[in-house]
Every structure is written in structure tokens, then in C-alpha cells.
């Protein structure tokens, strides 16, 4: 356990830029945009008259309306974080078992009494838990800051931020939902993570190419053969991956539902699962047949990655 933690710590040190700086920059962007919009408003809006009116109108809306919208705004802010987190994890895993082979530092890491399995587990944990956790923490921090700034603004036009939104939203619940969705998505996407680690352990160079090209070629062949045989376009690997993303337990899309904007788990294009953002729906995905198949696929890929890692040296 101590060794595993040391290895995860090592991953953090190596990837500080991606794991810590990146979410901080996103949070910073949100804050800066918020401040910029405030200054823009203050500049054109004579004595904040329009802003005052807007806040007053909002205050007149029923509590349920404000509560629903506040929560959507809160979770909606996470979309940007989630998207960038996905990129960070993708490239992190691609390099995880490749970079140290390229710079030959694998010869140092293998001189330490940490098994190759432990090394792979540490990389998986970094991708599945460490990175999402840091992104989530920075997200929460950003929201607290934005809440403070918004409250100050509302106060400055003589309205009470407590009755307006602070008392009616439940930030803890929204944050908790997001954290659970992040961790659930980490499990949901394990087959992809396994594939990336396998490629990372295998690629002699340019792991990105080895990660993307085989599935693309495979899918195109599938489509082509299907077309030759039946003159129809059935679901190919593209479809499977697309469906997988659409079914994911991460909050990925906002869409219009019953005349108002709603957030959704994955993308509401499939009807395998309920896409409403609830904890029950998140767990529904984790205890599904799809998940079971996904875990089996992930196990195959990870076993392959471990087999390759055992034999890997600098050349």
C-alpha cells in the first residue's frame, strides 16, 4: 500500500501540469470571464439599472424554478472541466507506459522493488481517481469563488443573495453527484483505459497513431464488409464506441427537454438507460450487462499491457 501510494505520488509529480495546472487554468478562465462580464455590464449599464431589474425579476420567480436553474448552472459549469479531464486522462494513459521506455528511465524504475502489476495499478489509479479528484476539487473551489462574487454583486444592487439563491440550492448535493459521476465514468470507461495502456505498453513510437488507427481501420473494414454483404450499414465499432459514450454515467450534454435546458448523463441518444442526472441512474449503468462486458474487455487489455510491461526495457 505504501509503495502504491508512493507510485501514485510519483505520477502526480510527473503530471503536475496536466493534473493540477490544467484545472486551475479552467477555473481561472471561469473567474476571469465572470469578472470581465461584470465589468462590461458595469461599464455600459448605467448604475447597474438593467442588472438590478434582472435580479429583481429573478427574485420574483418561484423557488422551485430558481432551485432547478441554479443546480443546472452549477452542474453545467462542470462540462468544460469534464471535457478537458477526458483529454488529460486520454493523453496521460497513452504516455503512461510509453514515456519511460522512450527516455529509458524505465531502467531506473525497474531497479526499484515495485512489481510491474503495481506500476500499472498506480497508473490506472492516477487516471481513474487522482485526476478526477483534483479536477473536482478545483471545480468546487471555482464554484465557491463564483458564488462569492455573485453574492457580492447581488448585495451591491440591494437584493439578498441568501434568499435569492444561496439558501435554495444544495451545492453539496450537486458536487457530490458530480464526484460520483466522475468516479463512475472512470469505471465505465475502463475498457478504453485498458486499450490506451495496452497501446502505451506496446507502441514502438507515436502511441497516438497506434491507439487510433487500429480501431478506425477495423471499423471501416466492418462497415465495408457489411455493406458488401447486405447493402446496409449496421452498427460498427464506431457505433459501439459512440453508444458507449452516449451511455456513460458522466454528465456530458445539455439538451432541451419540456421547453427548458436540462443536463443529461452521457448523451440522450440511446434508450438503454435513463439519461436524467440522478445517482440512481449513475449506478444503474455500473450494474448493467454492458458494464460486465466492458470489464471483461478491460481485463483482457490490461493483462496484455502487464504482459508487455514485464518484458519491456529500454530497447
Amino acid at each position, binding site marked *: 500500500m*505504501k*509503495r502504491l*501510494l*508512493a*507510485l501514485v*505520488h*510519483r505520477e502526480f*509529480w*510527473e503530471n503536475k501540469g496536466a493534473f493540477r495546472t490544467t484545472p486551475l487554468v479552467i477555473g481561472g478562465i471561469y473567474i476571469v470571464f465572470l469578472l470581465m462580464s461584470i465589468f462590461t455590464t458595469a461599464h455600459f449599464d448605467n448604475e447597474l439599472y438593467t442588472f438590478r431589474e434582472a435580479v429583481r425579476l429573478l427574485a420574483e420567480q418561484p423557488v422551485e424554478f430558481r432551485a432547478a436553474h441554479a443546480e443546472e448552472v452549477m452542474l453545467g459549469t462542470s462540462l468544460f472541466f469534464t471535457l478537458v479531464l477526458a483529454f488529460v486522462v486520454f493523453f496521460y494513459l497513452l504516455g503512461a507506459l510509453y514515456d*519511460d521506455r522512450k*527516455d*529509458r*528511465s*524505465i*531502467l*531506473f*524504475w*525497474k*531497479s*526499484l*522493488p*515495485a*512489481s*510491474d502489476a*503495481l506500476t500499472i495499478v498506480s497508473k490506472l489509479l492516477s487516471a481513474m481517481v487522482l485526476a478526477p479528484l483534483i479536477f473536482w476539487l478545483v471545480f468546487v473551489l471555482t464554484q465557491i469563488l463564483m458564488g462569492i462574487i455573485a453574492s457580492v454583486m447581488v448585495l451591491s444592487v440591494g437584493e439578498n443573495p441568501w434568499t435569492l439563491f444561496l439558501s435554495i440550492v444544495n451545492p453539496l448535493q450537486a458536487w457530490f453527484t458530480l464526484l460520483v459521476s466522475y468516479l463512475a465514468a472512470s469505471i465505465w470507461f475502463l475498457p478504453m483505459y485498458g486499450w490506451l495502456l495496452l497501446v502505451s505498453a506496446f507502441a514502438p513510437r507515436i502511441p497516438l497513431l497506434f491507439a487510433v488507427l487500429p480501431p478506425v481501420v477495423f471499423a471501416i473494414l466492418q462497415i465495408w464488409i457489411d455493406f458488401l454483404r447486405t447493402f446496409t450499414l449496421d452498427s460498427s465499432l464506431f457505433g459501439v464506441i459512440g453508444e458507449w459514450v452516449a451511455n456513460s454515467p458522466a454528465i456530458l450534454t445539455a439538451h432541451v427537454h419540456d421547453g427548458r435546458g436540462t443536463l443529461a448523463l452521457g448523451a440522450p441518444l440511446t434508450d438503454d438507460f435513463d439519461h436524467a442526472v440522478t445517482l440512481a441512474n449513475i449506478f444503474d449503468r455500473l450494474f448493467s450487462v454492458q458494464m460486465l462486458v466492458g470489464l471483461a474487455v478491460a481485463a483482457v487489455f490490461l493483462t496484455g499491457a502487464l504482459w508487455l510491461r*514485464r*518484458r519491456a*526495457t*529500454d530497447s
Partner: protein
Amino acid sequence: MTPIVSARGLTKRYGRTLAVDHIDLEIPPGRIVGLIGPNGAGKTSALKAILGLATYEGELSVLGKNPSRQRAALMEDVCFIADVAVLPRWIRVWQLIDVTERIHPRFSRARCLEYLAQTKVTLNHRVKQLSKGMVAQLHLALVMAIDVRLLVLDEPTLGLDILYRKQFYTSLLNDYFDEERTILITTHQVEEVEHILTDLIFIQDGKIALEASMDAVEQRYTELMVKPDRAAEARALQPMFERELFGRHIFLYDNVSREQLAGLGELHTPSVADLFVATMKRGES
């Protein structure tokens, strides 16, 4: 005493070529063994097998463990520096020490810091900011702070200047080596290690060309320097190698008694480098 390394028919294939060709090897504890061979002779392949970094055929036991299956456990008692400058470039010195301390049960932070204090390496340096010589010093400080029974050094000083190289081996000998420990070194810079070695292994085309203790080498091999007029007599005693230097003929004999040679000219113990060249030439013919 049980040997540190014991190999029977150790073989490593790359496709059809045999990099290591059925080697039998036994390294007892408390030795400093030089594994010496030309490029591509199979030194690194043999070392990688010993360190559990590569697959192999044959029987191999290192400290009683099977290196290919028990690398992690083995690394608690074995340490290696495979080539210079393989420390991760992004890492800071304090992070390197930290992670080593947390993973290696036999690492002593105090000793490591003690060794580092003798260098210009500071804790906040990133490895990529250090010169090649400083990286080697850092790696050596790390390794010397680990209390292991076998230390393997594969070209640990390649590309370093003479000052660093001398210092490297001096610290190794003075501060690290004792009767409990075994050091296995491969290098091309034979002159620098020959005075610290206790045993020699020459390897050629994946086979062992010579395996002997330095004492045995001294007993067995003699170098004779003669003036040209007596060269024919010397040649009649079947030297394994002959070369000319400043008009003198230098002969190297394997198992020819010193009394027999003494009358012909000056006798020396051959240097490891000369012995190596002679052995390789003999192996080729």
C-alpha cells in the same frame, strides 16, 4: 557459501541469433567481477537476464530467486545502474529520494544525503538541469545508500570525463564494497576498473572466453618483452599473442612458466586490456 549468481545453460535468442549462448556462470559473494567483452558480445543481454529485465532460456538463479518471475522481490537485494543518465529527466532530486525511500525498504536517506553533500547536486535540482557527470553522481549516491547484496553496473561511466570516472570507482570501493557485497561491472574502460576487480569474465560471441580470479590470471599469464634478436626464440614457446612496441616484441603467454621465459627479456603481468585483446584475437582464429 551459496553463490550470488548461478547460471546453467543461460541462453538468450533474438530471432535466430544467439546473443547469449549456453553460459554457465557462478559468482560467489564478496567479489567484484568485471564482465568484459566487445560490442555485441552479449554482456548486456546476460545482465538483463540476471536483473529480470528480459526473458531467457536455461537455468538462472540470483540470490536464490528466479529473476524473470520475481523481479520486484529480487530488487530488494539487488540494485543496478544500467548505463548512465537513465534517471527520469523531469524529476527533482528530493522527489527521487522520496520515492526511492518509500519503495525501497533498504534505502537510507541519511546516507544518500551524506554522499550528495560531497557533490554539487542540490535537492531542488531537476535531473534535466544536471550535467551528465552530476546525474551519475546522483545515481551512485542513491544506489550506495541502498543496502543490497548485489550491485550491477552496466557501463556506469560511459561518456563521463576522467575526473568523474575516477571518483566514481573510488567512492564505490572505499564507501560501499565489503565482504558481504558483490559488484558486477561491465565496461569498455577496462584500465579504470582492473585495479578494483577480484574476478574477470571475458565474453565473446555469447560464450565465456575466460573466467578466472585476478590472482589466477596473474599466475597463469605472463607478458614478455624482448629485443628483436631474441624474438624467434620467444616465438618458439608458442605465445598466444604478439605485438610490437618501439622496436621491442611483446609476447603474451598462457601457462608458460616464468623460469622458462626469464632469460629472454623483461617479464610483466599483462594488463587486463592486453589480455582481453589477446584472448579475443585467439577466439577469432
